[in-house]
């Protein structure tokens, strides 16, 4: 779905709020936002980038046009004659989000739990391309820090293109903001948005 939003004449944060509402409500694949000042251009571009859209801007007279396409989405099939001849995309992959809220797997023996989480993180690659987001919250953020037994694995996953999101509030709570070695620091809105967009959410 595509939408064009006219945010001219609005001061920040109104353009970004308008964009946020449209993106969240309609789950847009592509969106174009027209603004008339540099500040709104920067804010809207940042917001869309943060929401995993690829963003390009053009300047026309006194206006800026921000065009954004959701990353990873297939190009919307607009009914052009030549497109109808192409074979349909078969077996669409599902998007799996894994939410890890602990640094030990299961309840019972902590020693065992710590070993199990190491094994879990190392084995999770078996999900292949369908693993779409790995989100670490609460004690889970401790897996991303210097000295964690799985930090090398997580770095390798990230290099392979997996998006790893790490809860900023949690890092701050534990005083680990500086110690984090891998993943993007994120916030609850982004985590909730990821949950909404995922086809399957697995809680650990």
């Amino acid at each position: 779905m595509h939408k064009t939003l006219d945010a001219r004449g609005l001061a920040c944060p109104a353009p970004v709020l308008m964009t946020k509402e449209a993106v969240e409500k309609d789950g847009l694949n592509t969106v174009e936002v027209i603004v008339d000042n540099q500040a709104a251009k920067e804010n809207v571009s940042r917001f869309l980038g943060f929401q995993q859209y690829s963003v390009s801007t053009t300047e026309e007279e006194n206006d800026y046009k921000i065009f954004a396409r959701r990353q990873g989405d297939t190009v919307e099939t607009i009914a052009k004659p030549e497109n109808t001849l192409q074979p349909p995309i078969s077996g669409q992959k599902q998007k799996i989000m894994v939410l890890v809220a602990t640094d030990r797997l299961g309840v019972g023996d902590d020693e065992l739990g710590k070993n199990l989480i190491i094994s879990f993180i190392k084995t999770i690659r078996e999900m292949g391309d369908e693993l779409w987001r790995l989100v670490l919250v609460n004690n889970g953020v401790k897996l991303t820090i210097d000295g964690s037994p799985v930090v090398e694995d997580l770095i390798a996953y990230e290099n392979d293109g997996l998006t790893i999101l790490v809860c900023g509030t949690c890092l701050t709570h534990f005083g680990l903001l500086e110690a984090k070695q891998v993943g993007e620091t994120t916030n609850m809105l982004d985590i909730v948005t990821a949950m909404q967009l995922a086809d399957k959410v697995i809680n650990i």
Partner: protein
Amino acid sequence: MLNRILADIDPLPDSRVLVGFDKADDAGVYLLDKKTALIQTVDFFTPIIDDPYDFGRISAANALSDIYAMGGVPKTAMNIVAYPMQKLGKDILRAVLSGGIEKLKEAETVLIGGHSIEDDEFKYGLSVTGFVHPQHLYTNKGFRPGDSLILTKPLGTGIINTAIKGGLASPETILKVTDLMAELNKNASEVMKSYPVTACTDITGFGLLGHLAEMVLGTDICVTIESQSVPVLPEALEFAAMGFVPAGAHRNRSFRQEMVKLAPDISPIMRDVLFDPQTSGGLLLGCPAKHAVELKKHLIAKGAQHTAIIGKVDGQGKDIINIV
């Protein structure tokens, strides 16, 4: 903008005016006798958060701050209220004024009156009067080469308030930023009086770099800010990355960008935080480097827990702020 409007206005000259409206300082100062100068200030704004009691606390802390920034002691205050009584009713106003009173009591400042009008848009603030010994008056001019720069509160309240408007901030974040904005600069002001502080201001609407620019302008010095050392609310970095930067931050930047030299590795997000307009921000002060660490520790011990040494004053260069 106000500068241009006021350019033609010519107030009565008076040799007792120590700081007048031409100085763009925090408050006006008038000499009463050899030992006493009067400080007067006024500040009011529209609600920035939903809770009326907290809005009262924040607005009072913000109004009192100008007196503290000059090294003064606030003594009396008057309420300024513009209020849509029909729309909002009595209870909200009562809560706002009670919040204000709480802060005035903490500041040992007495409320001696006020003025209210009916208005479609709610505004609340105070006019505060205080005293200072003329020889211990701090203004925003006076930095000297070799000074260290100290900031007593973290930056980011403008960005977070923008995110609150967008419904993005968590209740914990709202609580944290509310308490920070309601925190008086009283203790910080008292502490700095026992150190050789060269200049001081409080960080408000112009943001850190906007206020620093006023302190540097026309003084033939240049300052260097170490961005890594500047205390910042982590949530502000998150929200700035998501595009919740208030229009004021962009205005502050376009107004002062020719004075500010950013190192290439400073992210646009950090740059926006440095220009973020603050509500009831901390004190920014200079003192000779050899006293800075002790002063910083003393400020932290007296409750300004986020205090940090954020940069230094260099001799060379004219009116330049380097961000590294």
